[in-house]
């Protein structure tokens, strides 16, 4: 097979991305290996698994994964595949259970992943070594302040090393939350016929499309729809005025952040943001004390899109966590989880849930617009000539602003810095020879034993 030339596919100097990266099955196969089999991937949040026996099912790339809290309270993650013949051992999306039983021949596993029952075992096997046939654990499982991540690479850097500077921004959501963060309910799930990279870079950095692609929704929801303001997030509907926001797009090693830096505009799209704004102001002094002035005053409460490479967006303001699961080169699933601060009054939590539903649920007023161009970009790349063309993300190149937090900041919400950061990181990851190169480091000569720096009781199985 001809070696793929990633420098040709993503040209950082000129901010060009060849459109075959949205269509070529050979590139997609490499993505499953280089990205989804090596990077740390978000599995869920500990608040989803409070009790022994609680489990959720998710995906790491296209791999079906069960995350379960065992009888010993330890959280583990396993491939959802019977070790006998490979049928799924769990078909529910979550719940509470004592065991996972395969529907093919009835092999049964406990919540610690051990093979606990084999029908007719004594009669048909001579000394079946049950220990050999436990569910296959995901190689690494670690938590960063409640966010559970898994990784298939034994030799990958630790989660905290992988997150690097983005942890400083995740802290605003995780430590800023009164009583901790809470992910309640099941996620919304939608299947869209497009390439997985397009919704990722759209959500982490495309401020340019907001006023135009979402013009219909922008006119009827939030600050504009309720005549509180003539702009949303500093930009006007239909792009009739220039970006007036104080926002910055920040590119770090591996990850990206877009934040509006005004401490409250995250709630600009809410029809009735008052309860949330009241909570913010009540909690702000605590956040400033914990995280300092810059994060407490300027980031907490701002519309903030934390992009964790490759496929996660933690979005403060809109207040949801989103995971994009690839399903082949031309298809993906969007999973959207509402997130709240645990100690918020129930009524305030309901305002947030209602807002997630209204804006970016499957019938969301804004969500409905994005799937369309994502599909068209993907499917037009079926054309050989079109596939040779290159997309251009040159906006704001070379524009810098002084920034006291981690990463390099570029001014404005209407900017393409985060999207360039994402494709540069994509190229680095596709070219990497090992998991350390993904984060721009050299792999240690002797592999470091996996550790769990944040939450001791979470160990890989």
């Amino acid at each position, binding site marked *: 097979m001809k070696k793929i030339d990633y420098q040709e596919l993503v040209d950082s100097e000129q901010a060009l991305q060849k459109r075959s990266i949205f269509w070529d099955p050979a590139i997609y196969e490499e993505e499953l290996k280089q990205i989804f089999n090596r990077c740390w991937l978000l599995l869920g949040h500990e*608040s*989803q*698994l*409070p*009790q022994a026996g*609680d489990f959720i099912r998710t995906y790491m790339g296209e791999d079906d994964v069960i995350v379960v809290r065992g009888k010993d309270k330890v959280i583990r993650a396993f491939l959802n595949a019977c070790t006998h013949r490979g049928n799924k051992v769990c*078909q*529910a*999306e*979550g*719940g*509470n*259970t004592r065991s996972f039983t395969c529907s093919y021949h009835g092999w049964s596993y406990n919540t610690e992943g051990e093979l606990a029952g084999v029908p007719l075992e004594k009669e048909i096997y001579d000394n079946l070594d049950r220990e050999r046939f436990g569910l296959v654990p995901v190689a690494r499982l670690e938590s960063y302040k409640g966010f559970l991540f898994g990784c298939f690479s034994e030799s990958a850097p630790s989660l905290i090393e992988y997150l690097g500077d983005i942890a400083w921004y995740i802290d605003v959501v995780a430590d800023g939350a009164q009583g901790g963060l809470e992910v*309640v*309910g*099941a996620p*919304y*799930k*939608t*299947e*869209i*016929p497009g390439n997985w990279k397009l919704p990722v870079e759209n959500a982490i950095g495309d401020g340019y499309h907001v006023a135009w*692609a979402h*013009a*219909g*929704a922008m*006119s*009827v*929801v939030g600050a504009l*729809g309720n005549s509180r303001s003539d702009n949303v997030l500093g930009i006007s*509907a*239909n792009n009739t005025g220039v970006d007036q926001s104080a926002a910055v797009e920040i590119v770090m090693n591996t990850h990206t952040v877009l934040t509006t830096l005004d401490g409250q505009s995250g709630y600009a799209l809410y*029809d009735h943001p008052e309860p949330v704004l009241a909570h913010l102001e009540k909690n702000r002094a605590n956040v400033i004390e914990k995280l300092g002035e810059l994060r407490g005053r300027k980031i907490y409460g701002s519309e903030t899109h934390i992009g964790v490479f490759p496929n996660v967006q933690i979005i403060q303001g809109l207040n949801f966590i989103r995971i994009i699961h690839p399903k082949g080169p031309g298809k993906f*699933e969007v999973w959207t989880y*509402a997130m709240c601060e645990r100690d918020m009054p129930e009524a305030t939590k309901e305002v947030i*849930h*209602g807002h997630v*539903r*209204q804006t970016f*649920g*499957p*019938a*969301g*007023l804004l*969500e*409905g*617009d994005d*799937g*369309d161009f994502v*599909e068209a970009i993907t499917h037009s790349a079926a054309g050989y000539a079109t596939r040779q063309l290159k997309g251009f993300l040159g906006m704001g190149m070379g524009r810098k602003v002084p920034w006291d937090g981690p990463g390099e900041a570029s001014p404005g919400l209407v900017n393409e810095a985060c999207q360039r950061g994402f494709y540069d990181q994509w190229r680095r990851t596709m070219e990497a020879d090992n998991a350390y190169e993904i984060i721009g480091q050299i792999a240690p000569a002797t592999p470091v034993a996996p550790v769990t720096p944040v939450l001791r009781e979470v160990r890989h199985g």
Partner: protein
Amino acid sequence: MANAELKLAPVAPVSFDQEYAIGKFLSMEARVLDEERYPEWLELLTEDIRYQIPVAINTYRRTRPGATTLKPIFIIDDGFPGLKQRAAREATGLVWLNDPATQHLRIITNVEVEATDTPDEFLVRSKFMIFRGRRDKDIASHAGWREDILRQTPQGLRIARRTVHLIERVVMDKNLNMFF
């Protein structure tokens, strides 16, 4: 839930004429939506309407509601203002994917009517299929059932409550910006 309440025959049957009128009303409503006459559709709703589309979460049958953190979520949970807002978005002329025009087709069938404890209110169950066609081949379809409370008012029948149950867990469509 719907199935728990379902009896082999209506508990409180209504007259043939009433049932016929309700069937005609639902067909008319479907046509008003197919023809994108959203302001007129809003007139068919009561001001106190509750319109919900719950997500059918895939848990094992043995899992009791509330036994896990998988709490019910809704794709839509709107009162009249929320529905009006959705209709207003459609009318802005700024929803680009509806131009060229989107074609809509709703089939409403298996209509069952029961009287309720409230005079002038009827419990109406129906099944639906909805097809949406755009451009050359961008066709989506959804199937499910509805439980409505229809209220007889001086202006005619009005929808006072609607719960829409879709059979798909993962929404197999770019969006559900439509009324069921």
